[in-house]
């Protein structure tokens, strides 16, 4: 029965292999602290290896231990992964953002986890290492096993980082959410988009909304229909109709009815696409 702050990644992996009872990795702990605790915790939140934010060979790497506050304040993230910076600004409260990590946001596996929604729109993959030192990569939405369940086994592996292509000069990304309050409220709906504009037309687009399914959900049919359309209000209006039509949502007694959520999906889809497209156009200049 113990709580160990790992001194480095290798020590954390060794502890995962050897500790009894079966250990569990803890990062920021803002969600885990309110749940049942296992007897042995390995704290990885202070490991410098997991706090990187850097661009290498046209890949943006963001460590799983990066807090929401760090990501929201990073110029690199703000410029090349704007959706993620925006999402991280809206999670919980300043206190939560100072502790909660991006890795935790994804592994906690809440359907509408803000950072996870942005990461899926950006096309991010998670890079994992297990206690036998083997590495595997998985798209962020595939890290969800079900509602509030991750495929990541916190007793035997560590999520190292997220990797994705930074937005190029002809691309823009954005994140929006709608909640009862501006702070400390879970979103009724959130949405993120990454869009590429070529000669005034949409040449590629990712549109993600949540909570729709257990994981942040790309609206693939809407995306396909938007490709080739001109940037403009008519297209955003069409996107609203398409997105609201495609998303099959559930109501929630606490947050909002299914009808209202469906309406919000449309409104937020239009809003997030418009913002992302404007960014792509502004960046070109």
């Amino acid at each position: 029965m113990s709580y160990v702050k790992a001194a480095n990644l290798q020590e954390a992996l060794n502890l995962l292999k050897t500790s009894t009872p079966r250990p569990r990795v803890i990062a920021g702990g803002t969600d885990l602290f309110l749940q049942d605790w296992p007897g042995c915790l390995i704290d990885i939140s202070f490991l410098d290896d997991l706090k990187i934010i850097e661009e290498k060979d046209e890949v943006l790497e963001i460590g799983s231990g990066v807090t929401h506050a760090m990501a929201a304040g990073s110029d690199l993230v703000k410029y090349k992964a704007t959706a993620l910076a925006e999402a991280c600004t809206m999670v919980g409260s300043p206190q939560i953002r100072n502790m909660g990590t991006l890795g935790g946001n994804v592994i906690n596996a809440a359907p509408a986890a803000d950072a996870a929604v942005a990461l899926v729109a950006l096309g991010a993959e998670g890079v994992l290492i297990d206690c036998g030192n083997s590495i595997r990569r998985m798209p962020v939405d595939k890290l969800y096993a079900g509602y509030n369940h991750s495929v990541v086994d916190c007793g035997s592996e560590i999520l190292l980082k997220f990797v994705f292509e930074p937005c190029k000069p002809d691309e823009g990304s954005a994140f929006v959410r709608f909640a009862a309050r501006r702070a400390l409220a879970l979103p009724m709906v959130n949405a993120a988009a990454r869009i590429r504009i070529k000669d005034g037309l949409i040449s590629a687009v990712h549109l993600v909304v949540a909570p729709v399914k257990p994981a942040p959900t790309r609206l693939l049919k809407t995306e396909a229909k938007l490709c080739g359309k001109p940037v403009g209000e008519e297209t955003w209006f069409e996107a609203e109709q398409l997105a609201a039509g495609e998303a099959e949502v559930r109501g929630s007694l606490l947050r909002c009815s299914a009808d209202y959520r469906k309406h919000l999906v449309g409104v937020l889809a239009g809003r997030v696409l418009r913002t992302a497209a404007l960014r792509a156009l502004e960046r070109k200049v």
Partner: protein
Amino acid sequence: MEKARINFILNGEAVEVYADPSRSLLYLLREDFGLTGTKEGCGQGECGACTVLLDDLAVNSCLIPAGKIAGCSVVTIEALSREGEPDFVQKAFVKKGAVQCGFCTPGMVMSAHALLKENTDPSSEEVKMAISGNLCRCTGYKQIEEAIMLAAEQLKDRPT
């Protein structure tokens, strides 16, 4: 969990405590160190009454396992006054009437300090953002915002 020795810096002094590492920092501060200025409101990271600074950042002490603070610096509301004299943020709260029942005040003041460490010239939007994790059911926030703006002004006027 089994008790363990935890060494950290508390209000500028190196301390050692023998405690269950899964206990919250909030209870450690209140019960083991008698620092009851840090309040328990919701106990789940939603009200901010338990806000302290952990390595200069505002955090909810109710969500932090004691084991996590080993080797870190923790600052509580008790560290602010000098020989019974409130510090400039506390005085600004008094001057602007930013205190009514007072339960949220220590957390508000710590969030204000976290902001002013980073940003000595905050806009009112930045002040609102900085205290967005602190709930107050009495004042309506306006006076608190004014108090933090006043404290920031005084910080500017100080000789560096």
